[in-house]
């Protein structure tokens, strides 16, 4: 009977296992192998030892893309976390049309990234007659401040991408909302009785209680930020002066534009190692900083 259950279970997850084997395990294994080869995709790979990995140390563009990815990652996670917790806190309060506001925050994240990127590219147009962003700036400043040329300099291009990343905070907000609902009312009441105000309660009761949720969202944020690709590709193409050229874009270019699949594979392995290391560090830090109720 037990054997029969195992067989049935394996049968049911068989399609998934096959998919995982052929579309994850095999490609990842091949990428590991190709990282040690000279492989143009169109010719047979030739083993070159650790040459692709050695090349990374003298690759200035790699330094640029890693820096850009780190800056984008850190800032988008910090800004995104603050924004999504704030929105979740607001949405958790009883309000009229509460469901509407919650849906409104989540709705943008269901739109395709490519469509969003095209819309935002128009919104950031430097001409105030065209670009919504600069129209808003001029409206709020009564025409005293002219909006920047968003894609004309590295600083503003990165700022534009960071602001745009807030567009898709919806899923994180939903998770934070669930976390906030889980905070026991008794703790709020106890803190209130002790004379702790709303801000104090937020920092000393709510934040520690939702810290596991924050940890989860930060890890997801790190993974997403490390893989940022489609939006900058469409909005900036990596420019100006490679200021918004990110690691995933570099991997893609090496593989399919420059025809160096060997180096691209090594860069992919580096990306995996960085994400793994960062996740490990965050989890280790979480042991000290995250409060698990009942643990």
């Amino acid at each position, binding site marked *: 009977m037990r054997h029969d259950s195992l*067989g*049935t279970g394996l*049968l*049911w997850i*068989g*399609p998934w296992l096959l998919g995982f084997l052929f579309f994850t395990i095999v490609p990842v294994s091949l990428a590991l192998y190709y990282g040690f080869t*000279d492989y*143009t*995709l*169109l*010719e047979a790979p*030739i083993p*070159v030892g650790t040459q692709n990995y050695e090349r990374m140390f003298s690759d*200035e563009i790699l330094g640029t893309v890693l820096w850009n990815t780190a800056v984008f990652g850190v800032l988008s996670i910090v800004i995104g976390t603050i924004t999504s917790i704030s929105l979740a806190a607001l949405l958790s309060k009883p309000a009229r049309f509460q469901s509407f506001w919650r849906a409104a925050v989540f709705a943008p994240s269901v739109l395709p990234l490519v469509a969003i990127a095209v819309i935002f590219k*128009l919104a950031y*147009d*430097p*001409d105030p*007659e*065209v*670009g919504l962003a600069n129209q808003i700036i001029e409206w709020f400043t009564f025409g005293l401040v002219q909006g920047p*040329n968003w894609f*004309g*300099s590295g600083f503003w291009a990165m700022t534009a991408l960071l602001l745009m990343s807030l567009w898709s905070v919806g899923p994180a907000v939903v998770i934070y909302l669930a976390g906030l609902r889980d905070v026991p009312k008794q703790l709020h009441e106890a803190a209130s009785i002790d004379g702790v105000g709303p801000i104090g309660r937020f920092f000393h009761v709510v934040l520690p209680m939702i810290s596991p949720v924050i940890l989860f969202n930060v890890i997801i944020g790190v993974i997403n930020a490390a893989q940022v690709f489609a939006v900058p590709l469409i909005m900036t193409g990596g*420019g*100006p*002066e*490679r200021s918004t050229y990110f690691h995933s874009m570099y991997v893609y*270019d090496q593989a*399919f*534009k*420059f*025809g160096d699949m060997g180096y691209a594979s090594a860069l992919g392995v580096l990306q995996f190692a960085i994400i793994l290391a960062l996740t490990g560090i965050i989890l280790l830090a979480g042991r000290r900083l995250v409060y698990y109720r009942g643990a």
Partner: protein
Amino acid sequence: MTTDPKTITRRSALGLLAAGAAGYAAFGPERRRLRRDGRVVLDYWEKWTSHEAAAMQTVVDRFNESQSAIFVNYLTMGGIDQKAKVAIAAGDPPDVLGLWNRNLPFFSQCGAIMPLDGLRDYGIDESTYAKAVGPLVFRGGRQLAAPSTPSSIALYYNKAIFREVGLDPDAPPRTIEAFDEAIDRLTILDGDGNVERAGFLPTDPGWWSWCWGGFFGGHLYDERTGRATVDSAPNIAGYDWFQSFPKRWGLDKLRRFQGAPIDNPSPYRNFFSGRLATTIQGPWLPKFMDMELGPGVFDYGACPFPVPAALADQPPYGPIEADILVIPTGARNPEASLEFIAFTQRPENIETLCAGHAKPSPLATSSEGFIRDHPNTAVAVHEEILQSPNAYTTPWITGWAEFGMALGAGLDQIWNLKSPSAAGPLGEVQIEAEAILQREQERRQRRNQPDPWESA
């Protein structure tokens, strides 16, 4: 023991999976190899859309009507060079593939395309083509590709604006010095120095980042030595001229000028609206004038792009490019593919195709009717550049994509005035380019492949 009718048994699950697999095999995607009438089907991948795709469709239809043994299945798609790499690597390439000439060094070096030496049997050799076109597709005496539609880049100007400022629309500037003077006359600045009309802007549309040194006699790469020559004196002069525009009018003011009116997303909007008096463009421009503004509405002229006075007596300088046809390695019917490519190279077919694209013909001579009825009244200017020994294209190197991207990043620095002269950024690009070429050479040595300059 009875089975609950709602329970899915292992047998039924397996049966479902097997039925799905059988259904996919029977009715799923399938590459047709033979039609019902017995004709061999050739898959031809091309990159064009709209009227450009339609022009080739006409040629394909002609071929299919003329044939009882071969049928060409014409498919157009985006990102064709990258898709082709994957298809060839997977051993399932199309029979005929439309690429750009800049792809040829990589595809040929990797052995991903088959030489078209068999075209000689159809009377086609290097002398078939215009002087500057032959070297785009021949290497070491072998024909690697067939040009489909070539283009040369020229200066287009708005004749009405020329007349308005007292410039002779029938005598456009031939030298950079005269052009600079004309630009000043054509440009209108408001009281705050904002550009209302620009005489010329090298970043509008900014599609040929590699072209500016060439007008000053520079080359990015020396084929005889295999060395990059990005920071040569002529290139620095060319890119200094490129940088003179933000220096002249101010970077911020140019950025504002280049902001687009939303009701016209066309890349030609500034030229068509009269905000830009002259522009660097390809031969297709008049076709888009007719499409966007109406037939014959825009009064334009074209001439080879101006060069420094010292080069003005030479045959015209100008960047050229070409769409090309190749047979990928692993194609199922190379003889049939060759027959189709040979058909496209017949004067009547290539002229139909090129006229449909509003481009010049790649052939050594064009028919009278082609020039007379061509949608671009200045097509002779483009043909003149295609016949010129001073026409130039992207370097014959496998790493051009990476080289070009490095040049683009350097160009950003030059345009954004990060350096007082182009020399600094070009020096950085030179270092990057040398590293790219060094890696290329190591790759060739690893694979015992000859250096390309040996066959240049």
